[in-house]
């Protein structure tokens, strides 16, 4: 079983201004990043379920060059309001740490196609294998 903590060197939640909560999933290496990205775990629906957000207002960004997945959503309570329990948003990621990362059914295919498109130089140099076409 692979968890988010297995794949990430840093899992972080922070404010992006007083009204937005944002999560950074910084992966240990390129393979971890692709595993996480292609697993389909970090979806708007997951964050809607965990933080009560409208899934249409959850932004999920895959940042290939930073080997990171970023998720942002409206803060459940505005920062520092009288019933806010986490003014810096610093511990909101906690329920995700041990979350199991599913194996993507097409992971072999997506792992091999994406680097070809995004890292043509590295494919040419033989560092990344060519996709089966």
């Amino acid at each position, binding site marked *: 079983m692979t968890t988010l903590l297995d794949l990430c060197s840093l899992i972080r939640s922070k404010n992006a201004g007083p009204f*937005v909560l944002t999560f950074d999933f910084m992966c240990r290496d390129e393979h971890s990043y692709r595993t996480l990205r292609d697993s389909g775990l970090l979806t708007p629906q997951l964050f809607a379920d*965990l933080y009560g957000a409208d899934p249409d*207002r959850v932004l999920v960004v895959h940042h290939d060059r930073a080997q990171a997945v970023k998720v942002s959503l409206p803060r459940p309570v505005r*920062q520092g309001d009288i*019933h806010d329990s986490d003014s810096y948003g610093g*511990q909101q990621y906690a*329920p995700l740490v041990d979350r199991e990362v599913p194996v993507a059914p097409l992971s072999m295919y997506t792992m091999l196609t994406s680097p070809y498109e995004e890292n043509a130089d590295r494919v040419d140099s033989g560092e990344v294998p060519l996709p089966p076409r």
Partner: protein
Amino acid sequence: MEIRILAPTGALGAGFRRESLERGVAMLPHVIACDAGSTDSGPYHLGSGVPKLSREAVTRDLRLLLKARDTLGVPLIIGSCGTSGRDAGVDLVAGIARDIAAQEGLSFRLALIYADQDPAYLTKRYEQGRIRPLDPAPPIDRDTLTDSHVVGMMGVEPIQQALREGAEVVLAGRASDTALFAALPHVMGADPGLTWHAAKTIECGAACAIPPSADGLFVHLREDCFDVEPLDPAARLTPLSVAAHTLYENANPYLITEPSGILDTTDASYTALDERRVRVAGARYRPSDTYTIKLEGSRLVGYQTIAVGGIRDRVVIEQLPTLLPMAQRYFRAKISDIFDGRVDPDDIDIDYRLYGQHAVLGPLDPARDRTAHELGVLITITAPTQALARAVATFVAHSSSHLPIPQYEGLASTVAFPFSPPETDRGPVYRFTLNHVVVPSTPYEMFRTVHHEVMP
């Protein structure tokens, strides 16, 4: 062309190594810039005007920066003075700068740029439909704009104007962090995409270095790329650490909005020059059709008194889900009784936070059904006046320590209070009220600049 930018630290008063600044000065920057504020510390600083960092810490950093600027003869730009960027924060840092100038024998032309917003101006723009919400924004009305303390977040333009008018030290109120670093390179003709990206990269100082620290970064900005390096020789940057910094405290790492447009880092490339330095290229700046200034507002909500305690007895812990709602009903009746109807119980908020039992994540905590063997209790009373908050807190704390436990006969003792008295006044509390922008007629009209000659 090469424009060199020195970013000594992430926040004025957060500190940096003297040797790092000296190393940066030796590389002959064209400008030294530094942010001094943020909303991240919460609504208190904007609402009250009280800075987050101490006068001593700000003085220490500012003294070194003013001396470095004097050595180099280049502009020193500091933004969001006093944490919130309120006028009071600008005046506070200006006072410190004057004291330092007197002590160190420094003279400089000082520009103060004020960012507090006049309620009459905001009301006029609101009525014109020129105050627009950013997603997600709280609902507002005219009163929101007049009940709150509001600052506008300036772009590069007022800073550039101050520099054109001869300022050597610019102390700005609330300002876009990136604008402080982008202002001068823009005037010198640097590519806006690269400039804004370089500014975004260094605005937190060495926060993106390995290891992250309160220290500085240095940028060499050229026609087609910029190189960035940490000022501490023991720290290093990698393409990954620099790319990852666009994620920090930012909703979308690819699109960063400024008053005049959007920085798009989608096609940016990050290349290691060696073990410590990274070359960055490829970001684009897309000017917007409409110039917008972001507003930040904070409003007084009331006054708080808190009591902190602990519960160890499992019998008490098991009863809390029924006892706390019962206690809340009792407090409402008691408020009506004690104040003889002069205080509306709806105006007083009594909040229990049980640390050890989903206090941080609340009812959303996936582990909420786990039983705790020891609980921390934070009781928070928020009321329209401090005296009222304290008066209510005294009987709330007292009653909380004598909750009626069905299994026990006689007067039970249910909370361990570590302090005497258990109640502590927290003072005024504030609420962020705006996530909006104004469409001004010019980039300058919301900000006021005053020039001074500072002599030792």
